[in-house]
């Protein structure tokens, strides 16, 4: 179990989760990168921004 750095939701990780793996937060949908496995740590992966009205 780890905590989403964006929305603070608990994110379940498989026992075989690996460093560098990309997962999605089930609550806020943010793409997250596993940056540590012992203990599990998550960071926000780069996101594409949407820009209308140019």
């Amino acid at each position, binding site marked *: 179990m780890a905590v989403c*750095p*964006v*929305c*603070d*939701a608990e994110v379940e990780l498989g026992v075989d989760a690996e460093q560098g793996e990309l997962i999605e937060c089930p*609550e*806020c*949908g*943010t*793409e997250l990168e596993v940056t540590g496995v012992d203990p599990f740590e998550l960071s926000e992966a780069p*996101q*594409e921004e*949407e820009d209308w009205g140019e």
Partner: protein
Amino acid sequence: MSDKRITASIVGGAGFAGGELLRLLLFHPNVEIKQATSERLAGKFVHKTHPNLRGWTKLKFSSRSELEPCDVLFLCLPHGESSKDVDFFMEKAERIVDLSADFRLNDADEYARHYGAPHPRPELLERFVYGVPELHRDETREAKLVSSAGCNATATILGLYPLFREGLIETDRTVAEAKVGSSEGGATPNDHSHHPIRSGSVRSYAPAGHRHVAEMRQELGGKNFALHFSATSLDMIRGALVTAHAFLKEPLEEKDVWKLYRNYYGDEPFVRIVKERDGAYRLPEPKLLAGTNFCDVGFQRAPDSNRLVVVSAIDNLMKGAAGQAVQAFNLMHGLPETSGLEFPGLHPV
């Protein structure tokens, strides 16, 4: 609860909210619809007016004068009619869910100020529970009389409630703008609803002075704060989207706001937090809620100020009218809150 079905009648069954109530109650596992009234259409099949119900019921509209005793009455009447005939309705049913604005305000003076006339039955105001079950669940369970909330009010209140309740935002400059579909205007046509006039329009129908601000203020914080509200009708049939601009007293991060909303709504069956980083539906979108009883709530913190934008969406005929009324009905009768309201919506739509 025994297997005996609860008998329900709908007064004013020919309008849009009445039609939605018929649709919901026909499929409700604990309800038998006894009557639906319409003075204009008495004697006519209800499916002539609500053609989606064709094949599901042979019910015909009755006149209000033919109303028989039942367990619960749903009142879907124009402004002022519920309160005018409330004694008659209370004789017919032990429990009443009124979808009009007649009994929503606790304070008769506020009613007079916003509706332009004294309340005809002020002594009854305190007996009606305001019908947003998320705010008044325990009272609703005990209630005999519920005054179901307005559609714009429901979306606005549920969007802002955690912030006001926790005293996290400035109390004098919250601004909410509702974008609404044409069904909010009801089933009776008028000059503004004629197709060449209505189609394609973006009409600021209440930039200020919307009457339902009174119930928003009542539920959010009372007389001592200001809520500035505007409403614009768009070229859609169902749905209301409220965009509220609130100003935080403290520099909360988005993660803190997530925690706040999760704390209030995490266990709510009909309020969902919708805030995603990517995809087509990152924030609440009323289109996805058509026919459902959900209120979706999302937010975004402005990066350069203390402004927090809260976005909330509903189907105005469901969570803003018939669905919310059935939700209250379920609570009043000790039934699962979601009975008859499980439809998840359509996609694409």
